[in-house]
């Protein structure tokens, strides 16, 4: 396992790998999105929710990615904090704005789905509140890194914050079972199999894979940017000597 991941620890190998993987994942994301949107807009209206069901194809993938990116942020922060992996720190820093946007989009599209279905833009139920807390953790992570001048200290403080925020992930996931919520319960990964009809499930899964591939592509691009930024700082230090 360590051997398999070793190439990611080495910035030169990572740059060679990401140079072809990032555009490939980007193209995959666009292709999957085209297929998902086509199936999503050729699916029939839901008998209860009418056309608002089409918001599901962008709301659910954004919410899943908000959670998944935080797991990536937490994992990278752990590697950075414990094993002092510079590339892991770059990966953590690169993941935060991506996760913040996915979570922000999940909140916004959820609100736009909630208003016609629940009659309210927002309710402080357990699922919505815990996702809002997740969004705040992303913002706090980025703010903390930006606020501390010493980059190494800022990275350590932000990594600890990211690890603390991991506690919120199971709360988000199981909030619909631990508490009575207005938000619907688990549908796709429900016990006993998905409760969604395949006519909605297939475009939802295609859009989710598209979001996942898009995240993979942009994460690699941003990590590459971080590597270049650190190389620029190193070259600047050499010139200043």
């Amino acid at each position, binding site marked *: 396992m360590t051997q398999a991941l070793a190439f990611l620890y080495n910035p030169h190998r990572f740059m060679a790998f990401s140079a072809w993987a990032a555009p490939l994942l980007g193209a995959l994301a666009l292709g999957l999105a085209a297929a998902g949107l086509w199936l999503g807009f050729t699916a029939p209206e839901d008998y209860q929710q009418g056309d608002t069901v089409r918001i599901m194809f962008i709301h659910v993938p954004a919410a899943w990615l908000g959670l998944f990116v935080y797991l990536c942020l937490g994992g990278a922060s752990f590697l950075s904090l414990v094993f002092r992996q510079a590339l892991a720190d770059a990966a953590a820093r690169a993941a935060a704005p991506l996760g913040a946007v996915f979570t922000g989009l999940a909140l*916004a599209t959820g609100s736009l789905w909630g208003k016609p279905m629940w009659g309210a833009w927002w309710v402080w139920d357990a699922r919505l509140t815990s996702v809002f807390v997740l969004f705040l953790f992303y913002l706090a992570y980025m703010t903390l890194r930006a606020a501390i001048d010493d980059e190494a200290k800022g990275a350590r403080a932000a990594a600890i914050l990211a690890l603390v925020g991991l506690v919120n992930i199971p709360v988000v996931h199981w909030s619909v079972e631990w508490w009575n919520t207005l938000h619907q319960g688990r549908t796709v990964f429900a016990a006993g199999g998905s409760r969604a009809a395949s006519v909605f499930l297939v475009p939802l899964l295609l859009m989710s894979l598209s979001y996942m591939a898009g995240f993979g592509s942009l994460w690699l691009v941003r990590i590459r940017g971080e590597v270049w930024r650190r190389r620029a700082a190193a070259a600047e230090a050499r010139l200043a000597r």
Partner: protein
Amino acid sequence: MLDLDPGEYGLYVWTAYGLSAAGLAWLAASSLAFARRWRRRAESLETRAAGEDGEGGRP
């Protein structure tokens, strides 16, 4: 059949899709611009640093 008319829910559906498209497009553009900006800067500084190292190495 392709159904692009969400009827009475059009405002909610198209606003949600518009926001998502704008958010993801901004994310892609800002990520590419970030990487490109630092790549140019690093390459320019490394070239200058290599030049100065070369000059410093001469007798």
